[in-house]
């Protein structure tokens, strides 16, 4: 429905930088040419060539850590293991099994990816430290296997005489030519990972990193996103390792030990794990520095360990973080008109159609019946308020409806579908958007990016169109009057404005229904007044809203219908006037009058 209206509205052209497929291509071409030029002036053998070769292949693997740790916030301590799998893929594939170099490279990267997926599927349903534990174990086991499975891996002796490839009839056997291959691969990977950050998948990863619960209510499949991030990281580790094997033509198990995983981790953290450029910088520094600081040779790992702590304390965003922070300050505000939100083009008329129907809903926590047989029907185009004293079950209700808690009994129907068994992200995809009592914004992202995450919920009419997503997000920010702050980090906004960002994020997803969990909580008087006006505007546009709040003044302003909960049961239901004069409701809020006095 909303698509039709949007099409009819004839949105005016806007000064938004639309994502054009060719954008960045000239830059990419220049970068690749620069890589080739660098390879052309590099020496054909010797010390400097080795340094460059190592930096190029390591940086590809470090870029993998940017995806899994920087973007998605999951710790992998096995990058050297995936690097090793890729390296052994090329080494054994070419030297022992006579495969073409690139086929062996693909096989190695594929095997690394499969291991990544298996480990990820096993551990990523649980907290982030599970992945850390599993990868640290995997790293140690892989070393065991490489050393002990001699018939396959040649054991501690390693693999020698790994051949270099021929590409399009061009032999890459020379050091300079092969370095060119590594550098071009590095440029492609770096640019791809950089583009990933501002793509839909990249934003989903960052949303998962910053706030899993909020991400799931924005339609993001948390588990799937994490597994993909880790899978990408493992494959990049494998590619880097495969190229490394060809570069040095000799590999042995100790090159892929736990210590090397820590080297990768330190490289990423030092340079800045939020960006592939940071990873590049960190890799370059840590490969060149130990060569300069030869006296550290004995103690370099101890120094790395101490550096990890110091970086976490004093330089949490790494060296590159300093650069990006300056660039962000110089970002200009987005000017020009933006189209209106399609949901605001709905006619503001209540209908009899029931959007959300909750029947006999129960949620028990042990012996506590937080919800005990609640029935609620929310009609399209109405503002339905759910009120009740503290502990009456209001927040439990919204958490069960959005799928964060599993109900003990009862059914939830939404736009005619039974969504009782849906995961949170599936409910959001069905058109249910919410805000949280304790604000849950994505702290590591800008205001605009936060709202874009909402706009690109799968199932939204603009989800597949990057330019449309940006326009939709700006429109939502316009509605809450925060467009001027679009490029600020969301954490720098006031509490009240962060709440508006949350509302804008929900609105941008063009929801069928908006659930507001105590939106007035923590706001001062001015902000509450502003919120009241905002809700009245939304109501005027005919958005279906379920609001939970303590603030009676706010509820009275906007509610068409009120349901009152007490001790997990609904005690009254009806128009605001009938409910607020109901003696049971007054008793629940103010206590029973004493009989003698009555």
């Amino acid at each position, binding site marked *: 429905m909303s698509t039709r209206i949007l099409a009819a509205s004839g949105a005016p052209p806007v000064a938004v930088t639309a994502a054009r497929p060719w954008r960045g291509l000239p830059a990419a071409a220049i970068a690749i040419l620069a890589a080739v030029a660098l390879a052309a002036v590099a020496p054909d053998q010797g010390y400097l060539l080795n340094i460059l070769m190592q930096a190029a292949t390591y940086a590809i693997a470090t870029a993998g850590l940017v995806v899994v740790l920087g973007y998605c916030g999951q710790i992998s301590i096995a990058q050297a293991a995936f690097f090793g799998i890729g390296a052994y893929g090329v080494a054994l594939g070419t030297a022992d099994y006579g495969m073409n170099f690139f086929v062996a490279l693909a096989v190695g990267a594929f095997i690394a990816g499969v291991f990544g997926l298996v480990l990820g599927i096993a551990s990523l349903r649980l907290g982030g430290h599970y992945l850390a534990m*599993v990868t640290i174990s995997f790293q140690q086991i892989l070393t*065991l296997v490489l050393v002990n499975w001699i018939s396959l891996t040649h054991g501690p002796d390693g693999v020698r005489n790994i051949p270099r490839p021929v590409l399009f009839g061009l032999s890459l056997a020379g050091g300079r030519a092969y370095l060119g291959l590594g550098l071009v691969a590095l440029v492609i990977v770096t640019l791809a990972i950089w583009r990933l950050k501002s793509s839909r998948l990249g934003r989903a990863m960052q949303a998962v990193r910053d706030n899993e*619960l909020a991400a799931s209510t924005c339609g993001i499949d948390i588990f799937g996103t994490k597994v993909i991030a880790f899978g990408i990281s493992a494959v990049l580790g494998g590619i880097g390792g495969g190229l490394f094997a060809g570069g040095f033509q000799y590999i042995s198990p100790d090159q892929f030990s736990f210590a090397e995983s820590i080297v990768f981790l330190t490289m990423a953290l030092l340079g800045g794990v939020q960006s592939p450029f940071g990873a590049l910088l960190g890799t370059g520094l840590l490969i060149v520095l130990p060569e300069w600081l030869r006296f550290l040779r004995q103690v370099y*790992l101890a120094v*790395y*360990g101490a550096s990890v*702590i110091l970086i976490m304390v004093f330089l949490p965003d790494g060296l590159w973080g300093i650069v990006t922070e300056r660039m962000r300050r110089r970002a200009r505000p987005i000017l020009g008109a933006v189209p209106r939100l399609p949901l605001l083009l709905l006619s503001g008329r209540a209908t009899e159609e029931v959007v959300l129907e909750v029947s006999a809903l129960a949620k028990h926590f042990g012996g506590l019946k937080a919800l005990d047989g609640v029935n609620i029907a929310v009609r399209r185009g109405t503002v339905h308020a759910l009120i009740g004293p503290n502990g009456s079950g209001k*927040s439990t209700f919204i958490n069960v409806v959005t799928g964060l808690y599993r109900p003990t009994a009862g059914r939830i129907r939404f736009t005619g579908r039974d969504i009782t068994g849906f995961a949170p992200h599936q409910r959001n995809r069905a058109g249910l958007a919410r805000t949280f009592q304790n604000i849950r914004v994505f702290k590591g992202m800008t205001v605009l990016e936060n709202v874009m995450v909402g706009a690109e919920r799968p199932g939204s009419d603009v989800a597949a169109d990057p330019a449309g997503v940006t326009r939709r997000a700006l429109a939502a920010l316009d509605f809450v009057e925060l467009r001027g702050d679009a490029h600020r980090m969301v954490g720098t906004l006031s509490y009240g404005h962060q709440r508006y960002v949350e509302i804008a994020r929900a609105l941008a997803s063009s929801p069928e229904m908006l659930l507001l969990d105590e939106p007035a909580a923590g706001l001062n008087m001015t902000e509450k007044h502003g919120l009241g006006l905002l809700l009245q505007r939304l109501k005027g546009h005919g958005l279906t809203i379920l609001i939970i709040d303590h603030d009676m003044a706010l509820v009275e302003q906007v509610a068409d219908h009120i349901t009152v909960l007490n001790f997990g049961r609904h005690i009254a239901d009806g128009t605001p006037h009938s409910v607020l004069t109901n003696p049971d409701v007054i008793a629940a809020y103010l206590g029973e009058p004493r009989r003698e006095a009555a």
Partner: protein
Amino acid sequence: MTMLPQLLFSGLGIGAIYALVALGFVLLIRAAGVVNFGQGEFAMLGAYLLVVFFNILALPYWLSILLAVVLMAAFGVIFAGATYWPLRHRGGLPVIISTIGASIFLENTVLVLYGPAAEQVDGPFGDTGIDVGPVFMASQYLVIIGVAILLVILQYLIFEKTLLGKKLQAVSQDKEMASLLGIPVAGMILLTFAYSSALGGIAGILVAPILFVSTGMAGAIALKAFAANIIGGYGSIPGAILGGLALGIGETLGAAYISVPYKDAFAFAMLLAFLMVRPQGLFGEKISEKA
């Protein structure tokens, strides 16, 4: 099959070591929400302190142990000051990363100081032991099992029967409320770090006469402690103990009947199996974050 009781006994002994390290690990998770990747290094440091006091300075055995345990407790506080304190308000991830950094730092510092050669500690019991039916119970194993049982009982009594224990529990359940009630939260957390480090140290000291003391022992023991926690149930104290014992027995049997070089891989296999089939472990609860 006559081997089996003997293997079970050895497995129990080594499992008790894993249980002690896992116990220190889980206490930090509960008290401070810290997933400490330096737990294995606690055991390694304890063992090296024993080497220093007993082998190098030639102090009496029991005095060496006492000094090592006291120093390990003090070290726990230093460890907390370096890895946890500066990052405590920045969420779980930075602290995890800094404990990883600390573990690398400690392991390699010891490596620089003492070199890669393993040290041998001759305990006071030598090769003595008692025969119980077909099973030869080596004295050191009996001591390990006895000390582990004693520590678990002691910890239970402290946590359940003393005011200090109640305060520690209060801090692990709700720091804000505990601090409103006048409990020195920071002090309780530091105390937990000290205790956790001492526990790890004791495990290292106990195992030193059986294994060679080397920097490599840290990683191997940490791996077992993680696995014990996942098998037993994340954040569960009885889970950590039983998980540790199960691992010790499992890997001893695996090494005897399947493969010696892959001894350390059995823990990993058990860990993966549990993650796939029963991620909440033996005693874990399904944890859901409050919205």
